[in-house]
């Protein structure tokens, strides 16, 4: 099924998508001429539906999303997966700032780079466990206030700095894996470099295979050595206060 988004406002497009997805269980929709339409897939419920976006979606793609899959053939804007609960987002391009803000479940795969504050305040909860895989590099404040889940940065272009400054500032749960070596200088308050355990390595390998399955890019990254970043403590700010 195809929808031409040309000339449609975001409100019209999203209403149409919501209606279609709620009617049929395993619907596949191709949306053509996506051009800055915001909020696509907001609150999407259908767990089997697939939406393919051709073009560049606007901000807050897949906000509050509860299921289903969105594939983007182009770049994405700010706020992908804002407070996302479950589902899959695959972006064949770059994504900008605050990817996965407060995301608590589901997976986001980005072929290229991400902007500032990706994975901020991500949190795991019961059987929900959010994952973000970035093929390229991430800007400053990656995983700020992170409280759960996993972020993987593959740096497939082998750039000198795979992550920006202040990575994982205020982290108090979850883990970040960055391919290659990064120094303590890149870390923010509350973060430390550690050694992954077997369970984490399995999880990491599964996510990497899943990444390659979507993007069919060169699988031969020259090394699969990762730096693990995790919290120093689950209570990073416990000792700042004295009671009146």
């Amino acid at each position: 099924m195809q929808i031409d988004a040309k000339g449609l406002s975001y409100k019209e497009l999203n209403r149409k998508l919501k209606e279609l997805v709620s009617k049929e269980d395993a619907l596949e929709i191709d949306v053509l001429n996506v051009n800055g339409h915001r909020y696509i897939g907001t609150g999407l419920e259908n767990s089997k539906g697939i939406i393919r976006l051709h073009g560049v979606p606007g901000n807050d793609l897949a906000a509050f999303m509860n299921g289903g899959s969105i594939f983007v053939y182009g770049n994405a804007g700010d706020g992908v997966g804002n407070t996302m609960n479950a589902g899959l987002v695959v972006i064949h391009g770059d994504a900008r700032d605050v990817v996965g803000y407060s995301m608590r479940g589901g997976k986001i795969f980005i072929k290229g780079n991400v902007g500032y504050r990706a994975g901020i305040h991500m949190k795991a909860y019961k059987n929900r466990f959010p994952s973000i895989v970035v093929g390229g590099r991430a800007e400053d404040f990656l995983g700020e206030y992170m409280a759960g889940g996993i972020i993987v940065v593959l740096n497939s272009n082998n750039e000198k700095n795979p992550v920006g400054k202040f990575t994982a500032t205020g982290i108090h749960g979850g883990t970040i894996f960055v391919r290659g070596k990064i120094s303590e200088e890149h870390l923010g308050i509350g973060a430390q470099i550690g050694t992954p355990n077997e369970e984490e390595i399995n999880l990491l390998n599964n996510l990497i295979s899943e990444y390659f399955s979507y993007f069919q890019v060169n699988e031969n990254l020259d090394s699969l050595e990762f730096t693990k970043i995790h919290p120093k403590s689950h209570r990073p700010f416990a000792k700042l206060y004295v009671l009146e």
Partner: protein
Amino acid sequence: MFPPQFSVVIDSDKCEKCKRCTINCSFEALSYDDREDRIVSDDRKCVACLRCASKCPKGAITIKKNEITFSPHPTWTPEIRLDIMKQAETGGMIIAGCGNDLDYPCLFDRIVIDACQVTNPSIDPLREPIEVSTFLGKKPKQLKIGDDFSLETEIAPNIMIDTPIVIGHISYGAISLNAHKALAMAARKAGTLMGSGEGGLHPDLYEFGDHIIVQVASGRFGVHSTYLEVGAAIEIKIGQGAKPGIGGHLPGEKVTEDIAETRMIPVHTDALSPAPHHDIYSIEDLSQLIYALKEETDYMKPVFVKIAAVHNSAAIASGIARAGADAITIDGFRGGTGAAPKIVRNHLGIPIEIAIASVDKRLRDEGIRNEVSLIASGSIRSAADVVKAIALGADAVAIVTPALIAMGCTVCQQCYRGVCAWGICTTRQDLARRLNPEVASRKVYNLISAWTMELKEVLGALGMNAIESLRYNRERLRGVGIDQKTLEILGIKAAGE
């Protein structure tokens, strides 16, 4: 070590050693001494919450303030000296509960209300109906009526409340589930709203959803589709009057199983709310979140935005109205909190009286007052404050501390300790059980009813039969002992003018 602040005096003639006080003191100040066969008190731990005194069947307990006599000095007050000593000892920031306790002038107490005499008859609310129902949400600038007299203007979602008094936001986690439930029950019975606070909503409260404003704060705790759809309105929390510009922090020890589930975070991790929403750095960004929430709820729910009252609230409110919000809650600097750094609580922000007057004026001057409802909060202490806030330009007020006092809070200001003896500000099950939600909700309902009656009484005295006549009616207010500039900002005359 200095002498304790309070002394617990137990009248040994009256005391029957039933030990009820020792069980009730959650601050562990009272215990029973076997050898001496008497109740002993560790005064240093007493916070004057009065739980023991109220539970003593013989009335044998008195709490006295211990006058600590430092050598007097007007600059170096005992409080300042003690704070310095504490910080020298620990190296920490001082955390305080409740609201601003510095002696700033309270403008509400310097504003008086008019009344009818001779030439403009007053109305007796006991015999004549007085309308106080209030609609929260966007109002159209004009109405278009079709040839067949049908309404052609699309009206944005509005919520009707039976009284302009709503219960403000306080989170489950800051207070017990019983307390949260009591507030929800009271809101439903009074035909008004309560705020969920930023800790999500326990499923037990979903049935009260039509009377709950669900909050979305920077930590996005417990925010998911069902939560957004269950509420009557959604509020984006930008700031809080007691702690403008800073985030929140529910310590891990308070994050019990139930609270973790409601907040959707692991048990015993700190629940940190970042200072800003990191997807909101501008009015345009705020607009983006407002419309994300509207998209999520099919444009069926009004979206409120709450800000702390700060110097440039008026300009910010103008931006919020233009960003698509349906209502703005403005929280003054005397507003309450479970915990905030004392420096922030006591020194940041401006009084609600000033903020509401300047915001209302700015929106009117710009011709966009109809775009948003205004809710004033932060130290509304009585129905008199309600009348004054509405006449200064608010559509409704939000109260929290008065509702807590109605439930049994004695304002001991130890909210951040998590051991509230009254079972309100705690997540400890044994303490939370002390609060009976039925009884507590009845008291909160009684309070709102009483204030609503008082409001009608004053409206009658003003010769008004509808709350609409009071809104922005600053002509019916006068200032006593307020300087000229402040009078100008408040938009009121001096008494006698």
